[in-house]
């Protein structure tokens, strides 16, 4: 019970910081709603940890609910890194296009001068 309270307290701190960032307009609506949903789900999962335990036993898993949440978090992190890598690749491709255009325009200018 104490562990659950501590976990909820920590998440509440994150949510508080999130609201502050939104107030200062450091993040947009989409980011705010994404992270708010993420942390809210976290609180719900912690409150209903025993029910998750029971559900996992029902499914035939031996691990506890908290382990399950940990595995889910690792999976989510991998997914986020992967998405980030793809976004980075697209940005890199766009940077190349801009660099190429600048180089070709510069050559044209040099020729005209």
């Amino acid at each position: 019970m104490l562990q659950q309270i501590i976990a909820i307290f920590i998440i509440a701190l994150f949510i508080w910081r999130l609201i502050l960032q939104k107030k200062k307009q450091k993040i947009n609506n989409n980011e705010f709603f994404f992270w708010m949903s993420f942390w809210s789900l976290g609180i719900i999962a912690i409150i209903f940890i025993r029910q998750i335990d029971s559900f996992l036993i029902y499914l035939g898993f031996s691990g506890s609910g908290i382990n399950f949440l940990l595995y889910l978090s690792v999976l989510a992190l991998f997914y986020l890194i992967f998405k980030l890598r793809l976004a980075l690749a697209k940005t890199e491709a766009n940077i190349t296009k801009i660099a190429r255009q600048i180089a070709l325009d510069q050559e044209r200018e040099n020729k005209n001068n």
Partner: protein
Amino acid sequence: MKIFCIIPAYNEEKNIASVITRVKPFVDRIVVVNDCSVDKTAEIVRDCDATLISHPINRGQGAALQTGNEYALTQGADIIIHFDADNQFQAEEIPEVIAPLLANQADAVLGSRFLSKQSNLPAFKKNIIMPLARTVNRLFFNIKLSDPQSGFRALNRKAAQKIKIQQDGMAHCSEIMHQLFAHKLRVSEIPITVIYHEFGQKFSGGVRIVKDIIIKKIIK
């Protein structure tokens, strides 16, 4: 027939002048794409009989080749040759490489280090890296060519128009081969000689190529 030679260059102040001098007798125009070198490459090229295009930031050899292709096409190139700036390729072999294009027997000619001519490939490269690269090409692109990573190639106008190099780094070799076959262009392999002054692409570079190929396959 307007024959252009594209030379991507990054920090090649020691070699670029001699490469230009050696290539010039065999082509109509030389285009050096300076990939934001931090040495005197650009200054040296300005004093040579070559067109200089400079990337404002370093984008990699594949990106430089695509820049060169686009420029050469706007200048009416009929044949585009890709040639390295490190003095490892033999300029005297350019006529042999472009011969199938001039005879209209191919749309693209790829130089190969593994046919009749002998290159002084480092043993690790020859026996480990190259077989692995061939496997990657077969796995990802179903390409069965003798040289999986040759940078010495020539394209006719049709091929150069169809090929869009999106791999900014060294994975462009595999990408070009893949696009040549995907566009059903006529591809020919010609033996070339490569004189290695240093090891060149390392195993880690090969790993990066595979990573780039996978990422590009996913984001397509």
